[in-house]
């Protein structure tokens, strides 16, 4: 009998496998796979090992790539390590295949780039270098495993905060890097870092980067969050601590009950494999805090501020273009002003243009990307007077050079032709409030007036519609068509099948002959009767046996009838009829009407027989 315990264990295994498969497939499907290479250290001495990690982000089902041999290094595969994180609902997963690298000689070794093909896709990594020296590096690193075992939770899971600089000007971009370090822990539901932003711009982190990093001799899984902030007012500020909320998943063994022990009387029979699955996984929410950092935000210098300065801080280039430069009055000229470079693009505003008299100007269209901001402005010459697109000036403060810089371009010469029509110029672009809007007319509603004369009268009984008549009108042509079809088919058959045509003629000749003979019996003229009988025999047998009717005699038909296996009794009857005809025609014998009737009957029997036998 299967114990309750075994059922629970099986269910746990099944659930775990299903979850693993699902998460693997899900992870593989939702994101693009990235292939990265890492070394836990870049300098080792002869006899020491380094760990090489080949990480595939976005999947957990990638097999270990074959990286071949590298002269001077002994590389051994250690095994895979998987990681799955959920950050603000976004699932990311990775698998890292670990290799131990043992140098056999001194030198600088290049590992990678590695290329790997799996399921039709090619994956390529970058490269890393390993410096192998005769002596150990000066910095003595404690043995890895013993230390690792001494690590407590704070050492295995922590957050660091790093600022690109500790002094900055107002509006100057300051890179912020928050790193979550994880060492051999299952961490899930990781939230984005948060910290106080008073005096700073809104903090919006980009998608985190995941990699491995050697930190104090321990290889950590690292999740790196990056963003840029800028100070909005001067002063000494404290940034941080950055806080990250997440769940640590820990394994907790289920306490065995006395009932379980009762079922398993021999404790040594316990299955350690199933005991692992019996373990329950629990999530423990934790909030991790980084250190805080001091940041001094200075105001922009008050001296030497250009007139055209509007707050832009960074290091920029300014490009100024106008197109077309030869236009008709009222036609638009597109002026493009691009600001490229690095810095806080939030502070980059539309560069100032000098005197724009003579132009109608519409609001500029703005396009912003990571390293540029483009302003597209439409200028319309209202007369033929403007000869140039005015000069544009862009000023910014360069925090590295700590000075204001002004770039000016233009003016750009243009040619404006007078239009043929001196009337008002064309209206393009957004409508102005002055534009006259057609007023919507408010119409009343009522019914349309009565009809003045009656239309065609119809009966109110059955709407004047005669279904029965309609039915007949449908049936009749159908029957006519069917009849016509049968006729056409018969005609075609007669034309195509000569045997069929002969058969039809034979039957026709027989019927005609019988009608004539019946008529002539009453005339009691035996000679005429037998003349007709002879003709009827000739016509019928000639058509039936496909031979010329005029040449038909008993002798000519006898052979044909014998060849067609016609009954001898019928042949005899045919012979008798031919003989009777000959006697009446040539011997002038007077034959009574009784005999004539018998002979007619004989003729009919012959026809019936031959038709039935289809000779």
């Amino acid at each position, binding site marked *: 009998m299967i114990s309750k315990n075994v059922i629970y264990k099986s269910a746990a295994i099944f659930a775990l496998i299903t979850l693993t498969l699902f998460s693997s497939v899900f992870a593989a499907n939702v994101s693009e796979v990235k292939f990265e290479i890492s070394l836990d250290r870049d300098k080792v001495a002869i006899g020491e090992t380094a760990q090489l990690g080949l990480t595939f982000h976005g999947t957990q089902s990638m097999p270990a790539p074959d990286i071949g041999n590298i002269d001077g290094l002994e590389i051994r595969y250690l095994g895979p390590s998987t990681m799955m994180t959920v950050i603000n609902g976004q699932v990311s997963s990775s698998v890292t295949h670990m290799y131990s690298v043992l140098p056999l000689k001194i030198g600088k070794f290049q590992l990678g780039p590695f290329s790997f093909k799996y399921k039709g896709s090619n994956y390529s990594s970058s490269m890393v270098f390993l410096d192998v020296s005769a002596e150990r590096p000066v910095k003595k690193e404690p043995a890895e495993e013993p230390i690792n075992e001494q690590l407590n939770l704070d050492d295995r899971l922590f957050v660091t905060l790093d600022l690109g600089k500790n002094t900055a000007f107002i509006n100057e971009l300051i890179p912020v890097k928050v790193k979550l370090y994880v060492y051999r822990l299952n961490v899930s539901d990781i939230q984005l870092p948060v910290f106080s932003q008073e005096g700073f711009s809104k903090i919006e982190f980009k998608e985190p980067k995941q990699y491995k990093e050697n930190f104090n001799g321990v290889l950590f899984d690292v999740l790196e969050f990056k963003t840029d902030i800028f100070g909005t007012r001067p002063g000494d500020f404290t940034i941080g601590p950055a806080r990250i909320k997440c769940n640590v998943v820990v394994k907790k063994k289920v306490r065995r009950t006395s009932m379980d022990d009762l079922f398993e009387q021999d404790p040594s029979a316990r299955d350690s494999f199933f005991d692992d699955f019996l373990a329950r996984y629990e999530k423990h929410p934790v909030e991790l805090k980084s250190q805080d950092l001091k940041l001094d935000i200075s105001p922009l210098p008050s001296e030497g501020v250009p007139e055209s300065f509007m707050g832009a801080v960074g290091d920029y280039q300014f490009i100024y273009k106008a197109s077309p430069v030869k236009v008709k009055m009222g036609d638009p000229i597109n002026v493009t002003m691009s600001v490229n470079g690095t810095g806080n693009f939030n502070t980059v505003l539309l560069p100032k243009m000098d005197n724009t008299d003579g132009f109608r100007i519409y609001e500029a269209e703005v396009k912003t990307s990571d390293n540029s901001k483009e302003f597209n402005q439409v200028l319309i010459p209202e007369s033929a007077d403007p000869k140039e697109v005015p000069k544009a000036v862009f000023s910014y403060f360069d925090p590295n050079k700590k000075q204001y810089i002004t770039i000016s371009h233009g003016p750009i010469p243009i040619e404006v032709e007078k239009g043929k029509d001196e009337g008002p110029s064309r209206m393009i672009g957004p409508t102005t409030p002055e534009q006259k809007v057609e007023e919507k007319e408010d119409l009343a509603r009522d019914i*349309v*007036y009565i009809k003045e004369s009656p239309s065609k009268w119809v009966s109110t009984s059955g709407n004047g519609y005669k279904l029965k008549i309609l039915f007949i009108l449908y049936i*009749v042509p159908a029957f006519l068509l069917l009849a016509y079809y049968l006729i056409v088919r018969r005609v075609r058959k007669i034309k195509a099948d000569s045997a069929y045509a002969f058969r039809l003629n034979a039957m026709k000749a027989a019927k005609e002959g019988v009608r004539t003979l019946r008529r002539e019996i009453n005339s009691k003229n035996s000679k005429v009767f037998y003349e007709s009988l002879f003709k009827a025999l000739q016509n019928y047998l000639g058509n039936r046996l496909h031979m010329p009717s005029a040449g038909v005699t008993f002798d000519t038909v006898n052979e044909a009838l014998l060849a067609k296996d016609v009954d001898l009794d019928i042949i005899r009857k045919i012979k008798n009829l031919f003989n009777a005809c000959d006697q009446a025609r040539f011997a002038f014998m007077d034959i009574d009407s009784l005999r004539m009737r018998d002979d007619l009957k004989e003729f009919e029997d012959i026809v019936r027989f031959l038709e039935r036998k289809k000779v």
Partner: protein
Amino acid sequence: MKRIFALIIMLVLSLSVSSHAEDKQADPSQSFYTGNALYEKRDYEKAVNEYSKALNAGVANSNLYYNIGNAYFKMGKLGYAILFYERAKRLSPQDPDLESNLTYAKSLVGNPAFQLPSANPAVSFVKRSTEDFSIKALGLSMLLLYFIIVILLAIFLTYPVAAKKNRLLFAAVLLVFIIDATGFAIRYYDELIIKTGIVVQKSAECKYEPIDKSTLFYRLQEGDEVRVIKTRNSWRQIKRADGKIGWVDSAAIEIV
């Protein structure tokens, strides 16, 4: 063969004779014009009575129904107005004045509580394609197309080469015939087999049983369209568009 031709000729003659017979019935045109004169004097009730004389003579036309609908509209009887507009629409579905008045009358009685369920796409396509034609026009065009098909088949039987050359023409005629015939069948079912009723009273109670004191099931509003299943004594069994069946006083509902 001669007998068949004779039969056809007799049928055609009977059609034309019946048509002439209708024309010669008590002069409905006179009632029509008199009704119009009364309408112009805004004596709508008398106008309706005069128009009705033509109906009592057993004849009608779309303009007569339209004018009666207008007179009822002016009298404020929107249910009756919709009823007569619907009757006119069956005879003259393409009349824009009629469509305008019907839409306006329906808009005044408010939105119907339930819309008729939409048909499947093929039926909808056929209905859309044939909605501008009366049932009579559909029937006659169907007959004409049928004759053309029969003649084409006879030609193709005689000259098989022609069949090969005119395959597309035949397919086109056949397709139009099928659409026409389907439209005719749908219209025939909707107009002549199914009885459509219009609520002509301001409000009508629909009950579970054809008894005065029966439980009230739901209420119908003036101008609502229902399907009349049967009539029993002074009650009509009706089916609302949402499928709910009940009994309504027959005076409250007129069949289109």
